[in-house]
């Protein structure tokens, strides 16, 4: 039994000793919701800080280093400033849709993050269609972007939102298909099963060549899904101001900003879970001494570490690659990623059929 599982079991028994079974269920739901909201805020702020700091190092600058040790509290100060600011919108904006849009993004990211296991027994709800649910829920986010673009009554916002729609619909395919490639190996859509199946080797080692191709495709389309450079046509600063959120200010802008970074975290977490074993420590079949040493590092640290490596990779992309044009974006998806992905699924199916995987 893992430490994290023991922790959740202890909390569950403690709550049962105080309340009835029904109340315990309710209290647990509230507690988990609060935990996710807290994690959401802290992770968002930390990622904004990391992004700014890493961007600075890529450009041989120092970045924020004044507020707190090494500038750690800079994003907290920025968030406080954004909360204190007055929300200003356009006069002709559809005020209902305009104020609704940020919550679509926030809620879709919160729902998506809830199925990812951060340790043994550390996931909001572990349903047997986890991967399917994640893909379905994360595409609700694009609805928020479209509503924001439509509701703000601004041509730049609308262009940005429609670009986002085109981009999301295209790249959703690649994300889904590359995850499907790995599911062929596991045979289950449940995230805990996916992690459990990697207790001897991570899936990227198990599936070797087709898994590596799927991983590369997933990282590319995941970067596009989270609207980051080189796929940030949605908010292309040089053409559209800020795209779909150009008319937002104050806390609503902060919601958009945070959800963008949380989306990056979700994409990295999914990549870490499906390809690199999630919270499962690095295990090599046969070396039991090595495996036991690795087991001393707790699961959540493995999970956050792997996610962090992929987040760093995405930040590296952002500060290296130039932005794609909209036709290049479509060409990359429909002429390169999608056909390669379909062929890759066939190869993977063949590999699994012949039993060539580890």
């Amino acid at each position: 039994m893992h430490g994290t599982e023991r922790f959740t079991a202890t909390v569950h028994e403690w709550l049962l000793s105080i309340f009835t079974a029904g109340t315990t269920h309710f209290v647990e739901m509230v507690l988990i919701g609060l935990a996710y909201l807290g994690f959401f805020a802290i992770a968002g702020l930390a990622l904004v800080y990391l992004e700014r700091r890493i961007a600075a190092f890529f450009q041989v600058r120092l970045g924020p280093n004044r507020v707190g040790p090494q500038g750690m509290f800079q994003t907290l100060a920025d968030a406080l400033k954004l909360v204190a600011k007055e929300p200003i919108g356009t006069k002709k904006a559809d005020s209902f849709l305009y104020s609704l849009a940020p919550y679509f993004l926030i809620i879709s990211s919160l729902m998506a993050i809830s199925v990812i296991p951060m340790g043994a027994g550390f996931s909001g709800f572990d349903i047997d269609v986890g991967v399917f649910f994640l893909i379905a829920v994360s595409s609700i986010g694009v609805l928020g972007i479209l509503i924001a673009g439509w509701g703000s009554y601004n041509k730049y916002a609308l262009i940005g939102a429609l670009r986002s729609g085109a981009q999301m619909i295209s790249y959703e395919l690649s994300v889904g298909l590359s995850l499907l490639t790995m599911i062929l190996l596991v045979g289950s859509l449940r995230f805990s099963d996916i992690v459990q199946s990697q207790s001897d080797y991570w899936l990227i080692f198990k599936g070797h060549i087709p898994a590596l191709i799927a991983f590369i495709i997933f990282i590319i389309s995941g970067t596009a899904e989270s609207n980051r450079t080189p796929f940030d046509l949605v908010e292309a600063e040089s053409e559209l101001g800020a795209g779909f959120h150009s008319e937002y200010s104050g806390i609503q802008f902060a919601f958009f900003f945070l959800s963008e970074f949380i989306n990056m975290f979700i994409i990295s977490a999914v990549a870490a879970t499906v390809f690199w074993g999630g919270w499962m420590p690095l295990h090599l079949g046969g070396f039991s001494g090595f495996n036991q040493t690795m087991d001393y590092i707790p699961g959540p640290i493995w999970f956050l570490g792997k996610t962090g490596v992929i987040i760093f990779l995405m930040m590296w992309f952002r500060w290296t690659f130039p932005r794609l044009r909209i036709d290049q974006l479509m060409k990359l998806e429909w002429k390169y990623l999608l056909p390669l992905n379909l062929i890759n699924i066939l190869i993977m199916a063949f590999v699994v059929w012949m039993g060539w995987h580890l």
Partner: protein
Amino acid sequence: MGYFSDIYKGFKTLLTGMRVTGKYFFNARKEIITQQYPDNRSTLTFPERFRGRVYMPHNENNEHRCTGCQACEIACPNGSIEIVWDRILNPDTGKKKKTIDKHIYHLSMCTMCNLCIIACPTDAIKMSHEFELAAFDRADLTMVLNQPGSKLMDGVED
């Protein structure tokens, strides 16, 4: 097989780019190019060609090199330089010679474009490294570059 060679070339160029930025990232601690300005105010280092406000160097005898030819005044695109001059009799030669009275410099209009320094035939004015130029009164931004009682250095001709 242009399709697959395109993919190969794409990945190759992307990795080349990532290698360049990665090199900068991992050596970032050693070669930060920004300076922590208000903290190191006493030890600031300037690039050689840094353009602060215009100044006129004087030597120890309070002599400058400005002949009053007005080339800088003509060269200035937004009229930041104004020269007040007169023809003054030189007692040695008995000839009248153009001499500056005031070299007036309006910092409020200057864009530090360097054109006056290029135009000057005698190198009388230069760009200083002074950059903290804010003032509380607009009149403080109009300054006379030649010091009071200064005169032309001997042997400077344009």
